[in-house]
C-alpha cells in the first residue's frame, strides 16, 4: 500500500506544474527599449562593440526582414506576434565585462548552479574524472556570461568563445563563414535573427584536431518581454572532430516569449560535427498559458568530401516549436544524420523535422524521428529528402514513428521526398500507434504502476535516439522524458 500512496503523492505533486526550472533570477538588467528599428539594431551592434562591417550586415538583414512575411505553413497555431512589443536586448548589469569567473555576478552563478550546470572549473576538476569534462558557454538573456576551460582549449588550438568576442577577435573567420550556411534572407526568423542576434557561441576546430572535451552552451531566458536571438557558428576544419551540446531553460511566465536562434555548422574535408540539443524551454502551464515560442533555424553544411554532420535533439519544452535541423550534403561521400525525440504534452505544439539535401556523389543520410504526443498537444514531423541530378548513389533511410497517449492529441507526418537521380535510393517508413494494451498489461502484471509502465515503454520507444546522445545528456534526457510525460496517463 505504501507504494500506491507514494504514487498518488507523486502524481499530486506534479499535477499542476512540473516544470522545475521555472524560477526567476532577481538581477538588475540593462534593457534595450521595446520595439525594432534601425536604431535598435545599431544599439545592439554598439553594445557589442562591433566593427562597421557587422553593423552593415545587420542593417542589410533588417531591411530585408521588413519586406518579409511571417510564414504560416507550419501546423502550429498562435496569436500574431507583435514584434514591436519586445525588448531585443537584455543583459545582466555588470561593472566591466567579466574577465574571469570570480567577476561574474554570484546571482547568475547561483542560477546556473540551480539548473545543475557547474560553471566553476575548480569544482569540476575536483569532482569529476577528467575525460568527463565539458567546456560550457553560458548565455543569459542576450549575453554570454561565462565560458569555461578557455585556456585549456586554446592549447589545442580550439577557439570557443561568445560570438560577439569572435566578431572582434577573429573577424576573418566570422566574415568568411557567417551567413554562408543560413543566408541572411533565408527565412523570416533567420533574417530577424541576423539583424538582432545578441550573442551565442563560436567554435573553430583547427585542421586535424579532435576537440579534447565536449563543448556546451547553456541558454537561459530570464527577463520578461524579451526575445532571445542567439547565433551559433561552428566550423570544423579539415579532419577535425567536435561534439557540441546545447541546453535551454526559461522561467515560468504568463506571457509568451520569443526565441529565434540560428545555428550554422560547417564541416570541411573529413571533418565531423556532432550537435546535440536538449531543449527544455518553459512549455506553458496546464491551460496552455505562457511558454516559449521556439522558432529556430539550424543547418549544417557538409561542404567538402567525407565530412559528416549529426544532429540529435530531445525536444520536450516550448509552447511552440518550429525547428528543422538540416544537412546540406555538398561534399562527395558526406553523411548527414538526424535523430530526434519530440515530446509534446499539455497544449504544446511541435512542428519539427529535418531536411537532407543530397548534392554530392555517394552521400548518405539517416533520419530517425520519434514523436510522442500526450494531453491536447499536436506533434508534426515535417521532413524533406531530396536528391539533386548529380547526386549519384545518394542513399537515405527515414523512419518516423509516432506514439499517441490519450485521445485528444494529434500526431502528423509530412514527408517530402524528391528524387532527381535514378541511382538514388530513398526509403521512408512511418508508423503511428498507441501504447498497446498488451504492453501495458505485461508491465502491470510485473508490478509496475501505470506511470512506470508508460515510462518504461516510452523509453524503449525512443532508445534508438537516446543511444546517440553523449553520456551526460542521455541521463538528463531520460529523466526529462519521464517528467514530460508525467500526468499524461490515468
Amino acid at each position, binding site marked *: 500500500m505504501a507504494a500506491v500512496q507514494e504514487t498518488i503523492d507523486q502524481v499530486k505533486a506534479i499535477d499542476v506544474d512540473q516544470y522545475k526550472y521555472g524560477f526567476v533570477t532577481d538581477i538588475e538588467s540593462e534593457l534595450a527599449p521595446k520595439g525594432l528599428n534601425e536604431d535598435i539594431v545599431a544599439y545592439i551592434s554598439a553594445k557589442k562593440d562591433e566593427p562597421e562591417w557587422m553593423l552593415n550586415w545587420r542593417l542589410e538583414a533588417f531591411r530585408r526582414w521588413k519586406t518579409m512575411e511571417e510564414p504560416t505553413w507550419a501546423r502550429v497555431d498562435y496569436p500574431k506576434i507583435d514584434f514591436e512589443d519586445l525588448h531585443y536586448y537584455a543583459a545582466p548589469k555588470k561593472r566591466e565585462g567579466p574577465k574571469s569567473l570570480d567577476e561574474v555576478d554570484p546571482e547568475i552563478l547561483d542560477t546556473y548552479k540551480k539548473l545543475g550546470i557547474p560553471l566553476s572549473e575548480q569544482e569540476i576538476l575536483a569532482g569529476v574524472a577528467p575525460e568527463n569534462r565539458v567546456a560550457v558557454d553560458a548565455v543569459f538573456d542576450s549575453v554570454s556570461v561565462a565560458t569555461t576551460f578557455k585556456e585549456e582549449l586554446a592549447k589545442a588550438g580550439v577557439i570557443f568563445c561568445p560570438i560577439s568576442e569572435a566578431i572582434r577577435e577573429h573577424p576573418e573567420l566570422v566574415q568568411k563563414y557567417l551567413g554562408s550556411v543560413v543566408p541572411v534572407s533565408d527565412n523570416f526568423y533567420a533574417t530577424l535573427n541576423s539583424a538582432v542576434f545578441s550573442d551565442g557561441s563560436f567554435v573553430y576546430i583547427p585542421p586535424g584536431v579532435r576537440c579534447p572535451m565536449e563543448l556546451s552552451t547553456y541558454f537561459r531566458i530570464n527577463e520578461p518581454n524579451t526575445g532571445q536571438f542567439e547565433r551559433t557558428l561552428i566550423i570544423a576544419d579539415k579532419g577535425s572532430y567536435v561534439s557540441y551540446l546545447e541546453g535551454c531553460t526559461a522561467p515560468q511566465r504568463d506571457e509568451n516569449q520569443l526565441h529565434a536562434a540560428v545555428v550554422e555548422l560547417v564541416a570541411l574535408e573529413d571533418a565531423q560535427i556532432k550537435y546535440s540539443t536538449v531543449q527544455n524551454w518553459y512549455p506553458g502551464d496546464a491551460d496552455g498559458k505562457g511558454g516559449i515560442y521556439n522558432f529556430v533555424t539550424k543547418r549544417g553544411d557538409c561542404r567538402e568530401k567525407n565530412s559528416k554532420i549529426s544532429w540529435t535533439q530531445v525536444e520536450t519544452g516550448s509552447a511552440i516549436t518550429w525547428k528543422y535541423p538540416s544537412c546540406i550534403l555538398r561534399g562527395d561521400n558526406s553523411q548527414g544524420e538526424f535523430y530526434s525525440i519530440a515530446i509534446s504534452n499539455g497544449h504544446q505544439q511541435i512542428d519539427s523535422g529535418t531536411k537532407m539535401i543530397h548534392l554530392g556523389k555517394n552521400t548518405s543520410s539517416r533520419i530517425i524521428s520519434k514523436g510522442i504526443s500526450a494531453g491536447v498537444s499536436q506533434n508534426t514531423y515535417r521532413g524533406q529528402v531530396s536528391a539533386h541530378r548529380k547526386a549519384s548513389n545518394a542513399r537515405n533511410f527515414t523512419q518516423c514513428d509516432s506514439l499517441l497517449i490519450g*485521445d485528444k492529441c494529434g500526431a502528423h507526418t509530412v514527408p517530402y521526398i524528391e528524387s532527381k537521380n*535514378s*541511382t538514388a535510393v530513398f*526509403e521512408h517508413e512511418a508508423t*503511428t*500507434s498507441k501504447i498497446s494494451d498488451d504492453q501495458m498489461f505485461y508491465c502491470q502484471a510485473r508490478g509496475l504502476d501505470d506511470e512506470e509502465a508508460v515510462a518504461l515503454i516510452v523509453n524503449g520507444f525512443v532508445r534508438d535516439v537516446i543511444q546517440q546522445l553523449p553520456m551526460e545528456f542521455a541521463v538528463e534526457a531520460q529523466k526529462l522524458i519521464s517528467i514530460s510525460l508525467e500526468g499524461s496517463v490515468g
Partner: protein
Amino acid sequence: MNAPAKIQETKAEQSLDAQFNALIAEKTQTNANQRKQAWDAFKAKGIPHRRVEEWHYTDLRTKMRDAFALAPTCVPKADVLQGAGGLESYRIAIVNGRFAPELSSNQELDGLTVTATDGVVSSELASKDAMISLNQALVQGGISIEVAANAKIEKPIEIVRYTDGADVSSYASTCVEIGAGANVLFIESFEGENGADYQSNAFTEIKVGDEADVHWLKLQVESQKAQHIETLGIELGAKVNFQHFIYNEGSSLSRAQLFVELKGEGTHAGLRGISLLQDQQHADITLYVNHAVPECESREYYRTVVDDKARAVFQGKIIVEPAAQKTDGQMMIKSLLLSDAAEINAKPELEIFADDVQCAHGSTTGDIDEDLLFYLTARGIPEAQARKILILAFLSEAVEEFEEERCVELLEAMTRKWLHADEMVSE
C-alpha cells in the same frame, strides 16, 4: 517569402475569361447562377501554381500555356472508342463532355439508370479546389448514373470519355449513386484523338450506400499531348467494399485528385494504381482520405515507373478524425526511376487525431535492383529483357491486388504492351 506581388493574369486565364463570358451571355444557359458562383471561386484563386501547397509539384500556371476553345458537340465513328478493349460490357459514351446516346448501349439493364444532365451539380467540393470550380463554371454536360439497391450487375459498366478534335477543351461532370448492397464494376476510360493536343477536365462524384461492393477501374490513355485533370469525390457508407484502380499511361500532363470520405463504420477502401511514364510526361496523383468514423480500413498502394525525362508526383494524405478509433490505414508508394533525367516527388502524409489507430506509410524510390538484374543475366537472359521482366513483376504486384480478374487480365496486357514485353520474347 516576400510580400505577395499582384499576380498577373496569364494568357490561359484571359482565354478562360472570354470563354466564360461568352458562355454566360447565351440566353439558353442553364444554372447560370451556380456557374457564376463557381466562376467567382475560380477567379479568386486563379490557375493553381507552385505556391499553392496542394499544387506545389504540379505548376499548372506555367504548364497550361493557353486554354483551348470549348469543344463542340460531335459524334465520332464508333470504332475510334477503345474503352475496356473488347470486354463485354454496358457502354456509356461521353464525347466532348456530353452524353452520346448514339455510341452507348441502348438496351435496358436491370438496376441501372442513366440520365443526361447539364453537368452543374451542387457539391461542397466545388469551392475547395480551383480546377473543380473551373469545371463547374464551364461544364458542357454530364450524366447521372444510379445503381439500384441490392442490384448485382454482372456486366462491367463501361464509361468511355472521348475528346474529339485538337486544340479543344472538354469539361464533364458525373454523379454516381450506388444503392445499398449493390455489386458493380465500372471501367472508365479517358481517351482522345491520337496525338492531338487538347485539355480535359472531369469531375465525378460517387456515393456508395451501405454494404455495397464496388470496383472502379480508371484507364487514363489520353493522347500523349493532352492535359488531363480529373477529380473524384467519393463518399462511402458503412461496411462498404470500395476498390479503385488508376492506370496512368497517357497525357503530357495529368492529375488525378481523389477526395475520399469514409462515413460509415466497418468500411474498406482500397486505392491503388500504376503509372507508366516516359518522354516528358508529368503525372500527378493526389489523395485525401478522411476517416471520420471508427473501424474503417484504407489501403493506398501506388507504383510508378518513370523513364526518360518524365516526372511523377504523388501526394497522399490520410486524415484520422478524433472519433475514428480503431482505424487501420496503410499507404505505400514505390517508384522505379529508369533514367537519370527522370524525377519523382512524393509526399505521403498522415494526420492523426485519434490514439487507438494503426497507421503507417512507406515510400521507396530507386532504380532496378542490381542484384536481381545480375541474377537474371547470369542465367542467360539479355539485360534489356531482364529489366522488362523486373519492371513487369514490379507492376504486377500492384495490379493483382485489385482482385477483379477481368481487370487484372486487361491491365497486364496493357502493361506488357507499354513495355513492348511481347516483342522481346519472340525475338
